């Protein structure tokens, strides 16, 4: 049985841990609220844009725009969206699992320190790594996307895919691989999007011929890059919401564990104290008995 002093020391250290995790939980909770808000409010926009694109894509030949052409895939381009800091449960590990399943040659782009560390450690071909602030300014994501799109049009990579934790709710974040370019299966993707947002944004079917102003080509040229930027931006927002949710849940678990441990330790401490007192009384009584 450890001495009362040892137990007292442990109690103190566990208490400190609990205090820290509690503070971190609160911080994550407030950040989570903002991030979730941002991720959810952007969804109608993304859905509408996808629906516009689908009506566009259904009416044009795929050779009209480089983003529509499906090339034989030699090198995949993968954007891995992770967190900068740890302590967020299995969030990053789940993403890394998806990455290790990729056997084809691929070039990687990382958002978040954890991701770039992982890619460097596993000696994968990392082209660039970025960090994005918590508030996710559109400009930061845009410069990342522009680099990827540039490599895509140059033929350095043949796809653009994003690996990110999709935000479902506070408790559930599912790691996903989302293909962004080339654009295919748009209909399927929109149906999925409408599903996941619960909105009735099903693509409007209108078979009549569609007019494009100022013309098909300019509209395509304007909408395509815009769509890619916005879409990836939305994915990053979703990843941020996931990060803070996961961190909050992880911290809450840690706090609860610390509380349980503290209860057990307090019990042990009281037991030890009690037995020490009993021991002392016994000794005094024995001493008195011997002298009398």
């Amino acid at each position: 049985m450890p001495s009362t002093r040892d137990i007292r020391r442990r109690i103190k250290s566990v208490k400190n841990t609990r205090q820290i995790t509690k503070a971190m939980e609160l911080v994550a909770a407030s950040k989570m609220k903002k991030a979730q808000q941002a991720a959810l409010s952007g969804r109608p926009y993304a859905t509408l844009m996808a629906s516009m694109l689908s009506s566009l894509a259904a009416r044009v030949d795929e050779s009209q725009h480089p983003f529509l052409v499906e090339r034989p895939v030699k090198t995949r381009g993968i954007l891995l969206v992770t967190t900068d800091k740890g302590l967020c449960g299995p969030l990053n590990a789940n993403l890394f699992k998806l990455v290790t399943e990729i056997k084809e040659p691929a070039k990687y782009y990382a958002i978040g320190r954890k991701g770039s560390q992982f890619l460097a450690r596993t000696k994968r071909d990392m082209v660039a790594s970025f960090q994005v602030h918590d508030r996710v300014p559109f400009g930061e994501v845009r410069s990342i996307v522009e680099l990827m799109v540039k490599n895509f049009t140059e033929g350095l990579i043949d796809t653009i895919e994003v690996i990110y934790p999709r935000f479902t709710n506070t408790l559930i974040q599912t790691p996903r691989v989302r293909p962004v370019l080339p654009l295919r299966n748009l209909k399927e993707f929109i149906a999925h999007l409408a599903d996941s947002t619960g909105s009735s944004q099903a693509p409007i079917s209108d078979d009549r011929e569609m007019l494009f102003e100022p013309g098909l080509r300019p509209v395509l040229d304007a909408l395509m890059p815009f769509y890619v930027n916005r879409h990836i931006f939305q994915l990053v927002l979703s990843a941020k919401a996931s990060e803070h949710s996961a961190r909050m849940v992880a911290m809450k678990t840690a706090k609860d564990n610390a509380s349980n441990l503290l209860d057990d330790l307090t019990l042990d401490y009281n037991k030890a104290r009690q037995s020490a007192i009993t021991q002392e009384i016994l000794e005094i009584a024995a001493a008195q008995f011997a002298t009398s």
Partner: protein
Amino acid sequence: MPLVLEIVTPAARVYSDTIDSVVIPTLEGEIGILPGHIPLLTQVDAGELRVMKGGKVEGLVVGAGFAQIAKDKVSVLTESAIEEEKIDENIVEEAMRRAEDALRGKESLEPAEIERLEGIVRFSVAQLGVKRRRR
């Protein structure tokens, strides 16, 4: 047959209602949309968007973006949108000044940033134009 108008920005769904007709500012000039319009996909320019509903005219100011008309549903996708009554000249002028100041040091900015700032200026000019014309 009624027309449904929906205006969506990255921040929120700004407008969603059944209307009689709408005038949208596009790159090619203003276009009026009535029920039964042919399917159309067009680029929206920063400017005033007028909604006719029950004999009344509502004014909104939108930023650059896209509009889609299909099956009597008008969807406007834009960077920013604001209702006419909610425009505060002071705030707009302030925002415009900030953007213009930032644009003055143009050489040091990235092209993407310049584009964003110019978008703000155009949106501000459109807001001020609408507000001042009404007086």
